[in-house]
């Protein structure tokens, strides 16, 4: 799922110090799973912020509220009652959550407390790896289930480039070359043919805001006239 990482404390503090009452909104979705923005992180951050502000004799105080998911307005209904009490909002959700809150409360300034990093996998507790860049045109089917956009530093579709060094990417000492891995895996599966063909220029789908309409549900929203 979406993986995020808390912003540096100072950055968060500076963003909200001009406001007196700030509501820090946590999210029970992806950011909770990746230990970045669940209720626990909200409480921790608020404790630190409030301690810092009172230490500096600043009036700013931060309260907490965590919702199921910030990416669906249905889960924001409970917020309607509390938000009017605050002059600033802070969200620990991914960028999508922050924006939906901003959309719902257009008169309230909102500040993100995390940086949304990637669509990734859980490696160990607290360690996550990016696995998808949401390009919108999945090619994993012919690359042995290894994403060339995410894993190849140059996002090549006809790799590997000449910089690959004994299976290691040219940019780092220990990052495995995605295309070496793709080749090895396809060879193992007797599918090297898949990459012998030239993969033509990518039809990028992530250049404008995309609207996803699941076919089964499209009918509901079509013009009835």
């Amino acid at each position, binding site marked *: 799922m979406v993986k995020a990482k808390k912003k*540096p*404390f*100072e*950055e968060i503090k500076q963003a909200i110090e001009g406001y007196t009452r700030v509501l820090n909104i946590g999210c029970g979705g992806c950011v909770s799973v990746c*230990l970045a923005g669940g209720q*626990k992180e909200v*409480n*921790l951050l608020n*404790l*630190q912020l409030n*301690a*810092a502000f009172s230490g500096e004799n600043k009036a700013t105080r931060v309260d907490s509220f965590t919702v199921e998911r910030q990416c669906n307005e249905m889960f924001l209904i409970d917020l309607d009652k509390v938000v009017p009490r605050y002059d600033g909002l802070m969200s620990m959700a991914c960028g999508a959550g922050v924006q939906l809150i901003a959309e719902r409360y257009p008169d309230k300034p909102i500040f993100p407390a995390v940086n949304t990093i990637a669509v990734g996998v859980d*490696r*160990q*507790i607290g*360690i996550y790896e990016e696995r998808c860049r949401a390009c919108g045109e999945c090619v994993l089917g012919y690359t042995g289930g290894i994403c060339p956009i995410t894993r190849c*530093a140059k996002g090549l579709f006809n790799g590997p480039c000449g910089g690959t060094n004994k299976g290691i*990417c040219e*940019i*780092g*000492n*220990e*990052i495995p070359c995605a295309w070496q891995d793709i080749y090895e895996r396809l060879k193992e599966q007797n599918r090297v043919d898949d990459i012998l063909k030239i993969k033509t220029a990518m039809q990028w789908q992530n250049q404008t805001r995309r609207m996803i309409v699941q076919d089964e549900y499209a009918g509901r929203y079509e013009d009835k006239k």
Partner: protein
Amino acid sequence: MYDLVRGPLVWVAFTVFIVGTVYQVVRFYSLSRKNPQFRLIKPTGGPPKKEDPPAEPVLTFGQRLRLSIAGTNPVMTTVTTVFHVLLVLTPFFVLGHNVLWDLAWGISPPSFSEAFTDVLTIIVIAGGVYFLCRRLFMARVRAISSTYDFVILAIATAPFITGFLAYRNIFDYDTVILLHMLAGEIMLVAIPFTKLVHMPFFFINRFLLVHENTFGAGGSRIWR
């Protein structure tokens, strides 16, 4: 009857307790495996960071405490900690118990004064009463309580209650001391095979298993 409870049953109880606990631990080890070693490769690739941000504030001990379970449930945390520590410790330092050790094995471990033990016993019983009240009157605890929970509470506190009664010679001493011994034996037997198994598993779960809330280095084992 008295001889049975004082003699063979003690050994049976200790044996069941030790073997049972060992069994639970061994079973855990056989049903879990070592967490595969994960070597964190610090990605040398990728763009360099702008500049190092100022250091994150370090949590003070007080802040850590407030964020922990002690911060959300201070009373319960205190009571349960004291209760559990005393529950395990007190029996080792009861003079009467240690006299028995002396008689059987010729060893005389250090003992608390009887008056002090009495205080500890009262604290444990008070803890038991607190748990009972929680279970009876707190909605959230009542919601997950069943008869079984009351029985377990009774098993855990019975040795202390009977010990307390025996020390003060309330009711018939012989009967009470018999009950005391029985209660202790029941508790020992119960530990590995009832809810009281949380005694060994507290350590297994919180120190050995890989979990967000593992103490120390983060644990080393995962379930198969």
